[in-house]
């Protein structure tokens, strides 16, 4: 002859408190809701932005390498050999190579009337026509250089260079004053995420650079597309392939690494925000424990009555523990919904694909569960320890 409560009766029993005082229940769950919302929101937003960044890196390609001239041991600037591009192209795993060379001390103006000291910002860069293909770039307007136009005073402007010169549209008469010569503008490029130096450049052909400005044939920067699977070994071999005599004076870099490093920065900020969320969650748990203690004090007669009706101590413990859990879970659920909503809103605003990581939702709920148990232990034990005869004695 033992007393027992059906599992189906547990939920109605545990929700008596919040049904009789819904406002208090809502307020007491607010702390937990905010904590969970913070955690889910932070993880959701960072994960969405990371996914976006990864997708962008993926789209731009992690197989782009740049080879630039470095410095000799003595400190003076090293030149890449004239045969660098050929050397790079012969390397196993290299798909495309384009040689470019900065042409120094040249200024670019919209007209020949601008005084020389007003120049700046736009660099002149000589390139092979294959640049567009190697960088996987696209034109905003016009056409790129080809083998023919590379021999004549024709220029293609990088995105920032075009903005600086105030050129948005290209027609047959669009010209710029480049190094004391008129150059016809053939096209304007779209921005390159992985090669910002191109954005600032006015691109001309290598032959015209040689004939007009005395370009000596030594490239300053090679753009190399490697087989994606072999990008890292290719990067290791390029220095020797480009300049067998002085491999140490060659800088090989992978532009996508710079973007990837942003992920790491985001991670450290995320852990800081997560810590704040955890503190909020803890404070929320204290709030629930507080409300539960008050609830136990107020419901003395209910506890006494339940004992008189046959409730054992464990039934009282379970009832109040479940109530605490229920409050916490309610807060957790609200928090998850809030966090997901915030993530979606931010993602929509930034144009990302919203991503609410299941691990954040699961972790948030697990933390809530734990908090519900911890917050409920003291009030529940206190309720169960209450002497029924004392509890029924009304003041």
């Amino acid at each position, binding site marked *: 002859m033992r007393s027992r409560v059906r599992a189906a009766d547990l939920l109605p029993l545990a929700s008596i408190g919040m049904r009789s005082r819904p406002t208090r229940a809502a307020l007491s769950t607010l702390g937990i809701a905010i904590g969970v919302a913070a955690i889910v929101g932070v993880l959701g937003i960072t994960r969405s932005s990371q996914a976006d960044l990864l997708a962008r890196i993926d789209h731009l390609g992690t197989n782009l390498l740049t080879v630039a001239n470095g410095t000799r041991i003595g400190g003076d600037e090293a030149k890449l050999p004239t045969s660098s591009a050929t050397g790079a192209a012969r390397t196993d795993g290299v798909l495309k190579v384009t040689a470019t060379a900065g042409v120094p001390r040249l200024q670019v103006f919209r007209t020949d009337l601008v005084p020389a000291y007003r120049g700046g910002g736009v660099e002149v860069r000589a390139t092979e026509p294959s640049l567009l293909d190697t960088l996987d770039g696209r034109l905003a307007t016009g056409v790129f250089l080809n083998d023919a136009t590379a021999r004549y005073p024709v220029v293609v402007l990088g995105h920032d260079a075009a903005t600086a010169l105030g050129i948005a549209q290209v027609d047959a008469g669009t010209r710029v004053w480049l190094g004391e010569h008129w150059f016809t503008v053939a096209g304007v490029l779209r921005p390159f995420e992985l090669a910002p130096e191109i954005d600032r450049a006015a691109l001309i052909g290598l032959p015209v650079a040689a004939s007009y400005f005395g370009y000596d044939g030594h490239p300053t920067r090679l753009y190399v597309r490697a087989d994606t699977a072999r990008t890292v070994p290719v990067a290791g071999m390029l220095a020797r392939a480009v300049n067998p005599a002085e491999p140490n004076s060659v800088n090989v870099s992978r532009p996508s690494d710079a973007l990837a490093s942003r992920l790491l920065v985001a991670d450290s900020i995320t852990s800081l925000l997560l810590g704040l969320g955890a503190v909020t969650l803890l404070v929320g748990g204290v709030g629930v424990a507080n409300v539960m203690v008050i609830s136990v004090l107020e419901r003395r007669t209910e506890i006494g009555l339940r004992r008189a009706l*046959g409730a054992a*101590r464990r039934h009282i413990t379970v009832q109040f523990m479940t109530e605490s859990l229920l409050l916490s879970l309610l807060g957790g659920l609200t928090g998850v919904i809030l966090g997901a909503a915030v993530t979606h809103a931010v993602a929509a605003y930034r144009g990302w694909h919203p991503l609410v990581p299941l691990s954040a939702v699961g972790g948030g709920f697990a933390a809530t569960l734990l908090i519900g148990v911890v917050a409920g232990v003291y009030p529940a034990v206190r309720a169960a320890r209450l002497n029924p005869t004392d509890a029924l004695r009304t003041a």
Partner: protein
Amino acid sequence: MTDAVLALVQAARTYPGTPPVESLRGVDLTVAAGEMVAVVGPSGSGKTTLLNLAAGLDRPTSGSVRLAGHAVEDLTDGQLSGLRAHTLGVVFQQFFLMDHRSAADNVADGLLYRGVRASSRRRAAADALDRVGLAHRVDHPAGKLSGGERQRVAIARALVGRPALVLADEPTGNLDSRTGGQILVLLRQLHADGVTLLVITHDAVVAEACPRRVDLRDGRIVADTLTGRSG
């Protein structure tokens, strides 16, 4: 005395303190099935202590309390709770109803700790409310009922599990004399139907209505008389 529902043998209850309060000092009392007994005494005579012992809410400091054949002092909290759930119904002076819940829900709670299915509880609650004359109030919130009706709901809750013993603590104490009289009529009617009743009271009218009267003074029984009134 095999059919004794409640048997106190030299039951004593002392509350710790300086000096200790001897609330009951060795009480012998046997209630047989089908009896209706009034325990009468002035305040401080130990009535409430006796009720608490009989209700299995407290244990004697010495002596023995047997409920439906089980010695209360030998049982664990879980076993004693089971005994309360299955053999006892208690009616309190203050009713102790949950005001925002319906009369039927309050009554059904009388079976909650027996592990009875909710649908069966509701059926039994409707029957019990019918028995106390409140069939028309089943779905009313308890808070909106009159005092007499509230006490009827409390009685229905005590009756709903057809317990071996129903304890009533000043069942008319919070009611006016007319309503109290109606409750008394109901209790006598239940007694006539075979319900075993132990009524704790200081009200002479209530005591008069019971076939057997036990007088308590300073923690001792001073008189145990059959009034000759049958149910």
